[in-house]
């Protein structure tokens, strides 16, 4: 099976601080991959680079057979094929929930407002937010906001969904509702790349776990192996610190 998204030895530095130091990663269709690692290990930067939100310094990113890191590529068109959810939701405060959800469909994909709203409402209904559609994001709880943000990301049926520590800004009691939604999306066959600190969730839902440390992939494999019997000392150290 050829990879849907493939990163080949990505390098990225901010000033003289190297954040990614030769990261290679493959993601197949319908695969759920969890990226774990300490804060500052490069998880968010990796996701942003893959999303073309941050230019890479070296390496190559392939979406299907297309080299999307080529400067001749229309980055906007590529980003329209991805979905992204951020740690602090990043909903647009001046738009109602339904307008947040349908913005990309209407403006980028030129879907008529009626059709976009019908689809948006159906998705909101599915995540239990149908009654909040006309509210503005500030009126919603954190968990509701993040579910709305996920709906916004999937409303255009992205080929890859990137989740950047989407539960880190949530209360423990709100984390569950968001993770449940991700679990459903994974079960429906979405292709997901997520940076996360939720080890139990990664172990449960991800097909593969990638451990990132100091801008390099130290270890990757099925969750049972990475969490159960990590090969590398660094991984063991990180996981021990995390579970204690």
């Amino acid at each position, binding site marked *: 099976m050829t990879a849907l998204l493939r990163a080949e*030895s990505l*390098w990225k*530095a901010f000033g*003289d*601080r*190297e954040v990614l*130091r*030769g990261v290679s990663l493959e993601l197949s269709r319908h695969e759920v991959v969890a990226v774990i690692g300490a804060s500052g290990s490069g998880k968010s930067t990796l996701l*942003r680079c893959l999303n073309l*939100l*941050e*230019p890479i*310094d*070296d*390496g*190559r990113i392939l979406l299907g057979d297309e080299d999307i*890191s*080529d*400067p*001749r590529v229309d980055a906007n068109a590529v980003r329209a094929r991805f979905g992204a959810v951020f740690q602090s939701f990043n909903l647009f405060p001046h738009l109602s929930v339904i307008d947040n959800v349908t913005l990309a469909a209407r403006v980028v994909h030129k879907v008529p407002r009626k059709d976009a709203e019908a689809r948006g409402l159906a998705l909101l209904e599915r995540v239990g937010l149908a009654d909040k559609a006309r509210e503005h994001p500030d009126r919603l709880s954190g968990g509701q906001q993040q579910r709305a943000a996920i709906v916004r990301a999937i409303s255009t049926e992205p080929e890859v969904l990137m989740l950047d520590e989407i539960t880190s800004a949530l209360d423990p009691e709100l984390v569950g509702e968001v993770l449940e939604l991700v679990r459903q999306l994974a079960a429906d066959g979405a292709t997901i790349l997520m940076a996360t600190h939720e080890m139990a969730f990664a172990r449960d839902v991800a097909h593969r776990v990638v451990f990132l440390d100091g801008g390099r992939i130290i270890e990757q494999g099925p969750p049972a192996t990475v969490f159960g019997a990590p090969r590398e000392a660094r991984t063991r150290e990180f996981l021990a610190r995390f579970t204690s």
Partner: protein
Amino acid sequence: MTTHTPSALEIDRRAYRTRQSRRSVLVAIASTLAFAIVVWVTIVATPGWAAVQESFFDPQIALAALPRVWDGFLLNLQVLGLSLVTVSACALLVALLRTLPGPVFFPLRVLAAAYTDVFRGLPFIIVLYIVGFGIPTLTNTRIPVLLLGTIAVTLTYSAYVSEVIRAGIEAVHPSQRLAARALGLGYTQTLGRVVLPQALRKITPPLMNDFVAMQKDVGLISIVGAVDAVLAAKIESSQTYNFTPYVVAGILFVLLAIPTIRLTDWYTARLRRREQTGSIL
């Protein structure tokens, strides 16, 4: 710490980007040349150009008029300097009055609102006439034009600037007040230490814009008889029947505005850099 040597692919991409930016420079040069040709054909090559040049751009008359126009310009600068201080103080006061909470301050809020309504609506020239001729008549004394000009500029510009400051105060998210009050800071302390510093940062670009507008509006004080750069130019040009002195005064005002405009650009660019995490969006 650059331990990494770029791959052939990356070197290729960099070469492509360099080629692209070189092409952009060439396109810019070509379009500038084309524009220059259009200007030359439509303005310089017209039969009236020589006459225009003679009556607006006569270097000898410009040189002769410069000392007098410059003396007048110094008066403009004085009005500007004084107004900068008075406008800042008055505008801040009016903005604070307008945002005072509580029923006790209702009359003050109304007064402040009425003031901004009237003086933003009133043309500056009318304010100048009223102040320039009204106040001396009222007090029956000679008042220096420097003072009269400053009062007129202050009345008009405080109204505009106070509204900008108020918008800035209201643009600070309510959660910031909440956090400050929760720490035990009082209303005034919250305003002074949390709200205003954030508000001023937000409104610096529009404030600079108002300052640039003020820089050139001080040139209007000539209509109440102040011998500033504009009136000096008028006197000079009536002696020679040549408009060049006006151009000299105009150039002085533009030269005054340019540093402020550049400073505004630099500051907004710096704000943008600070607040943005991604580098390409």
